[in-house]
């Protein structure tokens, strides 16, 4: 080996030097006997330098260091492997969009809209795009957890289930089955139906869906058309959209479907009118922006109706042949909602109201829509009835370009579970939230009434609370009261996949798989005018020790034994789902969705399902409702001179799902700057209060206060201020927690006299210099 020889040679030379032989340091400064002086050393160094220059060492090192500097460990490197796509359905909002999930190897790398899907046809929103962050992000609950003395302990699935079964068995033996309650994000689809079924055969009527505008739309359709149905909006075929505060491009109903509808409408020359006290994105994109006094949108709808009737601009065919109760309705609007009266209520000039009414009624297919912003808060039934009546006046119901009553999905047709004595006894108890009886007999669920019921009782009427697909501790108004109620409930079980506010206040967490890890049915797409079912398909193996909520319910039931177990004879949730979807299953697997081909709007034009078989402008039920008056705003005007309203943006998720980092990063700095939320204030209002743009201020409402920054916005009505929904999380991860303020924590509920639902649209507030 040349190496050995060369090394040997140099060693021989070194060892011949006396200093080296004696183990001493060579004296470099003129000790003659050593023979190594300064010059010799320099000579060695120079020789070394010359030699080095003749080797690849310097050049190779330079190259390697340059390359090293391109390889920082934090630089993301794309996965290598086979690219595959899986068709699925997004569950991050009730929009029901089809998605195509791109994987490289076993890793989800991107979520795209599913091309050809009737709802979104390849489109996807920013939240849907951020799905991979919700799968791989740091906020997942990775195994069942139990809170002991305020600290989380990881427990096994068996012991978690055993704990619930023991508690439920205990309540059952005491005849208190009705003290079990469940808050669910949906009341349709197999998982919701399994939860509801569990409660029924166990003996509790207290299944509660989280509130939204769906509650009021369902009621409006039920009262006027006699159907339990979902509203569908044929935006793209309409030619004039009159929106009473609905954020058509800000997350209202199925967001991507509405974007597409709005674009199609504009391309065809259709027009839009937006009635809202604030220049929202939707208002900015509209032809007309009509800023009414907040909360008087319903009065304007009735005022428009009075003009349309007075001027004879309504659809005579529809009103005369297909509607009932028109005379009473006509009297109501003519007497109470004359132009002058409405002008006074709304702050609009009379001619503006008349022009708007003529514009609306003069269009070929005018469509009036309701529900503020993204529609997360139910609002007032009177507003919905008033707006819905406008559609009836122009005859734009159940036809292309109009509002369509989409029947509730009926594919879940399980045999009724047998109930034992305990279950029957429990089911005969009144609902804890008061829905479905007495004053609120038409209302199905009243989650907003739950905190007060629990807080005002000596012992909590709810002993065990299950929360699935919902984050009430963040999303409900008056967060403090909700938190207090949760503390009073002895056992709160959350099925959340994420460490959200509700999880943080729970006693047990039984984490669900996230939507990219499970099968599930999505029984509708909100606002889509046809019955549609989407299938959620697992894209990756579950990353953690999580379990499908459907499986957990089945297992809980089976552990309970008796009639409860007998009602849940499925081996697994997946088996239950496949059996339930029956002949639709193969289509769903292949296409990702199933659409009712036989349903068409024309089939719906025949008869209404009311007693009169007609559309009912008024009826005994409608007349029994309290008369219209604008919803009061909570708070004392003398202390709180301003009106605080929430607004929605596509760049913030405000429901059960918290915004993933991608959304927060994409927020404009007029919404969030650092960790501070900006409150929109009209410069005139700010001037009166001595506030400066982009400076700190304290926002106070009767429910709390928050540190905010002022944002001068000419697009907001003087005296009104606004903050976005979706900020101010206390739970979640560092990417979301502690950013901005939560509107819900500052607001309070206002019970709608007609329904018991939360009708609040704002709260009184004041701003002071910080």
């Amino acid at each position, binding site marked *: 080996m040349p190496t050995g020889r060369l090394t040997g040679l140099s060693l021989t030379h070194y060892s011949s030097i006396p200093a080296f032989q004696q183990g001493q340091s060579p004296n470099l400064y003129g000790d003659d006997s050593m023979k190594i002086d300064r010059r010799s050393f320099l000579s060695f160094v120079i020789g070394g330098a010359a030699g080095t220059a003749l080797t690849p060492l310097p050049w*190779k*090192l330079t190259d390697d260091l340059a390359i*090293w500097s391109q390889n920082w460990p934090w630089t993301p490197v794309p996965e290598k492997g086979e690219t595959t796509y899986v068709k699925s359905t997004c569950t991050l909002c009730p929009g029901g969009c089809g998605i195509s999930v791109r994987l490289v190897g076993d890793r989800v790398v991107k979520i795209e809209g599913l091309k050809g899907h009737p709802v979104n046809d390849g489109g996807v929103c920013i939240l849907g795009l951020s799905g991979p962050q919700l799968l791989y992000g740091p906020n997942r609950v990775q195994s069942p957890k139990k809170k002991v003395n305020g600290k989380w302990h990881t427990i096994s699935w068996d012991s978690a289930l055993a704990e619930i079964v023991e508690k439920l068995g205990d309540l059952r033996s005491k005849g208190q089955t009705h003290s079990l309650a469940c808050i669910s994000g949906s009341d349709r689809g197999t998982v919701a139906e399994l939860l509801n079924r569990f409660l029924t055969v166990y003996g509790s009527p207290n299944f509660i869906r989280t509130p939204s505008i769906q509650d009021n739309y369902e009621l409006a359709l039920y009262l006027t058309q006699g159907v339990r149905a979902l509203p569908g909006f044929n935006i793209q075929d309409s030619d004039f959209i009159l929106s009473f505060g609905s954020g058509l491009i800000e997350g209202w109903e199925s967001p991507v479907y509405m974007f597409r509808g709005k674009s199609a409408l504009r391309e065809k020359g259709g027009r839009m009118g937006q009635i809202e006290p604030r220049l929202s994105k939707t208002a900015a994109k509209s032809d007309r922006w009509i800023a009414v006094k907040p909360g008087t949108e319903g009065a304007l709808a009735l005022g428009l109706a009075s003009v349309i009737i007075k001027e004879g601009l309504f659809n005579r065919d529809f009103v005369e042949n297909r509607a009932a109760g028109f005379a009473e309705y006509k009297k109501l609007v003519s007497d109470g909602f004359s132009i002058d009266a409405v002008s006074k209520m709304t702050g609009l000039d009379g001619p503006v109201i008349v022009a708007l009414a003529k514009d609306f009624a003069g269009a070929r297919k005018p469509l009036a829509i309701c529900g503020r912003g993204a529609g997360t808060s139910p609002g007032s039934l009177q507003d919905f009835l008033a707006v819905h009546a406008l559609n009836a006046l122009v005859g734009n119901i159940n036809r292309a370009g109009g509002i369509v009553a989409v029947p509730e999905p009926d594919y879940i047709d399980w045999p009724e579970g047998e109930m034992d004595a305990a279950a029957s006894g429990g089911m005969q108890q009144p609902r804890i939230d008061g829905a479905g009886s007495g004053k609120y007999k038409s209302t199905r669920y009243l989650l907003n009434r739950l905190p007060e019921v629990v807080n005002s009782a000596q012992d909590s009427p709810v002993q065990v609370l299950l929360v699935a697909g919902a984050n009430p501790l963040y999303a409900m108004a008056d967060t403090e009261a909700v938190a207090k109620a949760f503390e009073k409930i002895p056992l709160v079980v959350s099925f959340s996949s994420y460490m959200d506010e509700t999880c943080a206040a729970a006693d047990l967490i039984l984490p669900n798989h996230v939507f990219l890890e499970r099968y599930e049915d999505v029984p509708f797409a909100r606002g889509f005018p046809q019955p549609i079912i989407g299938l959620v398909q697992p894209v990756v193996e579950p990353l953690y020790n999580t379990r499908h909520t459907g499986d957990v319910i089945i297992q809980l039931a089976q552990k309970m034994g008796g009639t409860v177990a007998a009602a849940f004879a499925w081996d697994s949730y997946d088996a239950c789902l496949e059996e339930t979807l029956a002949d639709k299953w193969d289509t769903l697997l292949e296409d990702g969705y199933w659409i009712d081909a036989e349903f068409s709007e024309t089939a719906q034009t025949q008869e209404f399902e009311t007693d009169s078989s007609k559309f009912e402008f008024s009826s005994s039920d409608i007349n029994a409702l309290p008369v219209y008056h604008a919803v009061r705003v909570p708070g004392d005007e003398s202390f709180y001179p301003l009106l605080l309203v929430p607004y929605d943006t596509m760049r913030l998720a405000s429901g059960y799902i918290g915004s993933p980092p991608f959304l927060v990063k994409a927020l404009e700095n007029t919404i969030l700057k650092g960790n501070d939320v900006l409150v929109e204030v009209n410069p005139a209002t700010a001037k009166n209060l001595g506030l400066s743009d982009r400076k700190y201020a304290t926002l106070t409402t009767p429910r709390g206060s928050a540190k905010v920054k002022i944002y001068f916005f000419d697009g907001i009505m003087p005296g009104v201020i606004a903050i976005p929904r979706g900020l101010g999380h206390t739970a979640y991860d560092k990417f979301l927690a502690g950013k901005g303020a939560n509107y819900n924590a500052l607001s309070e509920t206002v019970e709608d006299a007609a329904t018991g639902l939360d009708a609040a649209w704002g709260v009184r507030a004041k701003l002071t210099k910080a």
Partner: protein
Amino acid sequence: MSTEDKANEVSAEAQDQEPITPPADPGQTGPGQGAGGPITLFFILGLVASLVLGWVIFPQLLYSHKEQPIQFNHVLHNELVDDSCESCHFFREDGTYSGAPKLAQCIDCHEEVQGESEEEAKFVNQYVLKDREVPWLVYSRQPACVFFSHVAHVKMGDMECVTCHGDVGESESLKPYEANRISGYSRNIWGKNIAGIKFNSWDRMKMDDCSECHVRNNVNQGSVQTLRGGCFVCHK
């Protein structure tokens, strides 16, 4: 050369001074005993030491050696398949290249031990039965900043695998994988020769080697983005 000149100058100077220094020990004789002697000697020492360091020790220090998880015999497998390299290193339907085979492909034949080979037994027991992917070390792995399409070269450009990868298909065992300790790249990118000298087209896989061929064949030398200079052809 100027360094060497200077060194000679210095030693000449040292020789001039030699008479001034009285001989310390009459017993010591020979050219090495003069002041000029050690200076030349030390220069040569330095030169030799650095040459040894640069050519011999440095390459050994620079690269780590790692054995492949399984000793794979390309020759043996090549005899058994119909479609040569592409039998296992195939193109997917979408045109992407599969690279090193996944377990799923190997299982087609190796669900159980087929022959006498110890390596095969190891493969079946440690990977097939445990359903674990073999962590093959890829000699020719380009860094993340390089966009390389096999289909463009092999299918559209009609190139042979050997042109870039050499005679891998004729190997009976897998050589140790050497990784650059600084950059983390496989040694095959710079090439076995530490001076970067290449004799065959497959000896080196640096950027210049790609562009050399692109220039020679006058292909894809400008990117769509810049229309000149080929940066974006490979660095997307």
